[in-house]
């Protein structure tokens, strides 16, 4: 119990510190006190630049981190598999492809991008389930199928981009993730859908807890296992898809963060889901801030940093299994 509270407090504090650090560091630098006084007054030109350029980027990073991490928790619960992650098993790349494909063909439908991304993610998720299900889910098989699905969607996305080079699409933002040049309209998209998704995820915590039981046992106590799986997976896909729409594909967050979170606060989803959101927000914001400061003026995308840390971490988890 004390460890839980301590973890919550420390991660919250670190998040606040990172937010302030991130807001004041970069090509425009500001002192701590200068920043706070400028925050509440108009007309400071440096502050205006930070408001227009840096704040949207930070908020997007925070929501994307929270959404992807919680999406990971939900997927791991639904698939009864600690290795599930929207980026690794192809849900993100499915979302990215379908979104890109439909928007390229019907550019006027751009306002429906989140819906298309959701459809793509749901399709990928369905494929992974359908192809790896054989009277139960074998953890390793699911990951292998997922990696294949991911490769497939990434491949067709890249092919599509090289064919359609003339199309008026900013395709590069889809495959990789780069958080530069986010605008307040991006913020409103991810904040709206992200908040809805996160609230829904939390509302489902008791179902997630029940899924630790084997299917037959869960059924025997009158639990609608299939229905719960479907709904939880839909929320997970929503969270992953909305991050893809605004922040691009970032893998390994949904794997790394829930794993650390379980170590710190335990397996009860009532505590785990909010904590994962906090920790995920912290990690992506930190990754993005470091990425744009350590080799400035060049930038390392947050997704690249996550892959560098996440790859070895996945190997570590696989060896432990």
């Amino acid at each position, binding site marked *: 119990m004390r460890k839980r509270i301590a973890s919550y407090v420390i991660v919250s504090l670190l998040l606040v510190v990172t937010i302030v650090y991130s807001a004041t560091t970069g090509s425009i630098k500001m002192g701590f006190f200068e920043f706070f006084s400028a925050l509440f007054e108009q007309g400071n030109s440096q502050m205006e630049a930070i408001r227009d350029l840096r704040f949207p980027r930070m908020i997007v990073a925070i929501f994307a981190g929270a959404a992807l991490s919680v999406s990971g928790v939900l997927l791991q619960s639904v698939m009864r598999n600690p290795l599930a992650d929207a980026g690794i098993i192809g849900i993100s790349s499915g979302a990215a492809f379908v979104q890109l494909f439909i928007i390229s063909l019907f550019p006027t439908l751009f306002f429906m991008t989140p819906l298309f991304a959701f459809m793509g993610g749901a399709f990928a998720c369905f494929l992974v389930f359908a192809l790896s299900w054989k009277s139960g889910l074998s953890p390793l098989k699911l990951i292998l199928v997922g990696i294949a699905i991911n490769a497939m969607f990434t491949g067709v996305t890249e092919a599509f981009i090289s064919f359609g080079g003339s199309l008026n699409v900013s395709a590069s933002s889809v495959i990789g993730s780069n958080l530069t040049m986010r605008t307040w309209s991006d913020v409103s998209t991810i904040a709206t859908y992200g908040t809805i998704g996160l609230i829904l995820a939390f509302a489902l915590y008791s179902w997630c807890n*029940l899924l*630790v*039981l*084997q299917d037959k*046992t869960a059924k*025997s*106590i*009158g639990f609608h296992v299939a229905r719960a799986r479907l709904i939880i997976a839909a929320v997970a896909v929503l969270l992953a898809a909305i991050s893809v729409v605004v922040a691009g594909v970032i893998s390994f967050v949904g794997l790394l963060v829930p794993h650390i979170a379980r170590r710190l606060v335990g*397996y*009860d989803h009532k505590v785990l889901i909010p904590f994962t959101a906090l920790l995920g927000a912290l990690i992506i914001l930190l990754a993005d801030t470091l990425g744009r400061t350590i080799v400035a003026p060049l930038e390392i995308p947050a997704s690249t940093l996550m892959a560098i840390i996440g790859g070895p971490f996945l190997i570590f988890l696989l060896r432990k299994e």
Partner: protein
Amino acid sequence: MEIKRIIVSHDNITNHLDDVSTSISKGKVTTIIGPNGCGKSTLLSVLSRSTMPTSGTASLENRDLVMFKPKEFAKKLAIVYQQNEVPKDLTIEKLIGFGRLPHKTLLQRNQEEDCKAIDWALTVTNLTDKRHKDLEALSGGERQRVWIAMALAQQSEILCLDEPTTYLDIYYQIELLELVKSLNEDYGLTIVMVLHDINQAIRYSDEIIMMKNGRIIAEGRPRDIITKDVIKEVYGVNAVFKEDDELGLYMMSLGI
């Protein structure tokens, strides 16, 4: 509980249950026995609605089992499976609390009832002083009792047990069977279980269903149906039966 002309086939080639009809008496201990692969677990899974029969009907209180909603059925019948994965970082109390699910609706939960039922399940299974421990910290026999306690928290009238003693050593086997006996005698639960040990079946059952190759070979009171000839027919084992003052009827196998 009644089942009529049940046929179950998992592969549409062989029938795992072949035209089985029987009834389970209320308030009694009924044990299903038979050699490996005879369909005893399949019969239990038809009764507990986890396997849908290919043809035939299973009914409870004159209603077809398929007519029950999942939670409604879980209030009538609880089942403990043979092998259960042990969830990490979950206290016994919380796990047993899962058994209260059928009594909860989205908007309504009676916490007082829940606590009472959980306390009762803990007391009966003698786990009260371990309630805050993690499941992982318990021995095999204790874990089996936890799963039974979870089923008891459902407060159903019927309790099904699939080979509850299989992975336990002899001390825990007896402890478990005594628990089953007391659940039946003191709390009036109808028990349906699958056992491997014939002597335990004789000793703890009111009625026995003996199966072979997906069919019921004999059913009735243990003394009436378990005979040398039946054991030879079903198991292919030569057995002798002795009567002992303390043990009652018991069986020894001579050879094959």
